[in-house]
């Protein structure tokens, strides 16, 4: 047991951080705020660097790494606030031609149906205008009983839902009817899918896809939560009031300390979930990472004073993205109910 990242894992993370700093620095970030159209050239570079093919076997041109490595890389994309359907492209790289190399961009939407069979909520689509294809996963949300089963071991496709099999379908983006709306996150255009098409079915393990989407999203939240700690600390060191850096005031110090505690707790949850792949741990990790990202951004905003409330400072970009991600692939409310049901079913073992 050595839970700390190995040397190669650290190198991978540092490499991703350097690449993103060079190719998506502050200027590019602010340019994307004004025009969120995805940069195809950058996307292909990410493809070349292996962002999408990371987990594909080397025999088919992939990098042959696992979920823990994907999580480390995705944490860096969260730090850099890199926009785009990164989670979708990472998860579908082996299934849709051209995605692994960054030639093609695919979106992913979850058309979960509630226990009664109707839609559980609006079906969201990120960056609809930039996607070549939309993959929609459909099928009843797992009932509490079947979630209990899934938690105990590997879930099979047929296990979810009340007798219905969750399925994935691919559709040409242009054929999907959608209703764009003003996204709260200026870097992530959004639309509601108004009529979920069921064209060509895709053979994939939907429960696993949902679990991995939640985990990679959590990794991005973690990156954002860690970044806002750095931003708050840097500002607290440089901004002076009453003749002293504001970071010497205990009220500010304690805000920063709590931010670090949130980020580090979420880090352990997310990394552990990437190793065990266990549904319970993924669910908990997503919830803790969502909380860390949202509340660290809030506290970072407070540390920045009036500057924190401006469009000019980057703090709001972290907060808005954190809000968006918290809505995707399992909300806190869903997670709490699932984990509560698991406590009754399985007791409180580790």
């Amino acid at each position: 047991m050595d839970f700390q990242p190995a040397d190669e894992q650290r190198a991978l993370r540092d490499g991703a951080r350097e690449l993103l700093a060079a190719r998506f620095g502050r200027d590019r970030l602010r340019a994307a705020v004004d025009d969120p159209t995805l940069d195809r050239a950058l996307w292909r570079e990410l493809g070349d660097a292996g962002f999408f093919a990371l987990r594909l076997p080397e025999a088919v041109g992939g990098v042959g790494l696992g979920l823990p490595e994907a999580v480390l890389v995705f944490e860096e994309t969260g730090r850099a606030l890199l926009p785009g359907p990164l989670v979708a492209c990472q998860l579908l790289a082996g299934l849709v031609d051209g995605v692994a190399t960054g030639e093609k961009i695919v979106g992913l939407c979850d058309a979960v149906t509630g226990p009664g069979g109707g839609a559980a909520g609006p079906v969201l689509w990120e960056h609809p205008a930039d996607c070549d294809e939309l993959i929609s996963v459909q099928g009843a949300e797992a009932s509490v009983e079947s979630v209990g089963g899934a938690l105990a071991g590997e879930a099979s496709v047929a296990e979810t839902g009340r007798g219905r099999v969750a399925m994935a379908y691919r559709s040409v983006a242009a054929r999907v009817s959608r209703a764009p709306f003003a996204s709260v996150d200026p870097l992530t255009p959004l639309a509601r899918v108004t009529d979920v098409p069921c064209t060509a079915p895709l053979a994939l393990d939907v429960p696993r896809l949902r679990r991995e989407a939640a985990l990679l999203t959590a990794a991005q939240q973690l990156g954002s939560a860690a970044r806002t700690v750095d931003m708050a600390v840097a500002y607290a060191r440089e901004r002076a009031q009453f003749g002293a850096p504001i970071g010497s005031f205990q009220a500010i110090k304690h805000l920063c300390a709590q931010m670090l505690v949130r980020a580090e707790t979420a880090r352990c949850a997310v990394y552990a979930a990437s190793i065990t792949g266990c549904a319970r741990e993924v669910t908990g990790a997503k919830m803790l990472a969502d909380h860390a990202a949202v509340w660290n951004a809030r506290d970072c905003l407070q540390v920045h004073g009036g500057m924190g409330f401006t469009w000019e400072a980057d703090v709001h970009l972290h907060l808005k993205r954190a809000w968006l991600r918290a809505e995707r692939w399992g909300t806190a409310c869903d997670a709490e109910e699932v984990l509560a049901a698991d406590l009754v079913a399985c007791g409180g073992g580790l």
Partner: protein
Amino acid sequence: MDLTYTPEEEDFRARLRQWLGEVLPLLPAKPAATDWPGRRAYDAAWQRMLYDAGYAGLHWPRDAGGQGVTPAQHLIFLEETELAGAPYVGANFVGLLHAGPTIVAEGTPEQRARWLPPILRGDEIWCQGFSEPDAGSDLAALRTRAVRDGDTYVISGSKIWTSHAEIADWCELLVRTDPEAPKHRGISWLAMPMDAPGVTVRPLRTLAGSAEFAEVFLDEVRVPAADRVGAENDGWRVTNVTLAFERGTAFVGEVVACRRVLGALARTARDNGRWDDAVLRRRLGRLSAEFTALWRLTQWNVSASRSAGGAPGAGGSVFKLRYSHARQELYDAAAEVLGAGALDADHTWVADRLSALSYTIAAGTSQIQRNIVAERILGLPKGR
């Protein structure tokens, strides 16, 4: 990042499990919470069983009488003993987790030979005489004086909040040996026998009704200079060795126990109808994620300390901040499950709810931990 254990570690786990299964039924009945001599005897008996089976001082170095196991094996030990319902470290806490490690790190060969074996065998109980009425968070402001008289120190002053003082044989005592020096520089670390003439112990009642800590008055107590650990006036550094250990792995078993309590809370709520309350249900679900994460954070810190040569780092403060708060939330949730039953002070969950209130205070308050995180980890400037 690897959470699997090696075959040797799994083998260690299997042998430990088997041993626990054999010996736990042989333990005498647990004494009442207020029967302090009984508790001492019980905790000492358990420590002796560990010693005889080669499980005492597992992570201490071999040349200090320990077993020199890996941090992972130590973690397995703490996890398995808790899962099996074995007794806690109890009255041996200070000896095994504070004074002992300090003597291991800083003691002379004679001091190690004198004090470590009885700690490992459970023969001698230690207490910690650090805090004073006017020196709590600001520990370095302590005023208990030790004046040199030939080869002995003559000590006068008073200590407070000394856990287990009534049943302890020895006290790791911080005293001021140079009143002229800056406050961190004039402190020394002494081992004081609790039955020395001039030592008076007056028990204090906690809000839980028990008498687990005490005031200790010192009136011209004579302690040989040979029983000072570390150099004269170097006690602050020596102490920080001890405090770091305190925040290391001290709570591993409790995290395991908290998850078990959580499972029991869920089942109780299911049985008594409180489960229909979605707010309560969701609270328990959230705590489940919380304690899983705390367990992972423990493994993270243990792995980090291995690369740092065994000393627990500032990660201990991160853990303590999060854990002490989570523990209080757990027992607040327990009170909600119990409803009016939470007014029955004899219920274990209620007793634990009361004792949980000390977690954000003892061993450095949450405010002090946040100062440590902000200044030592985040590098924010010192201030008022």
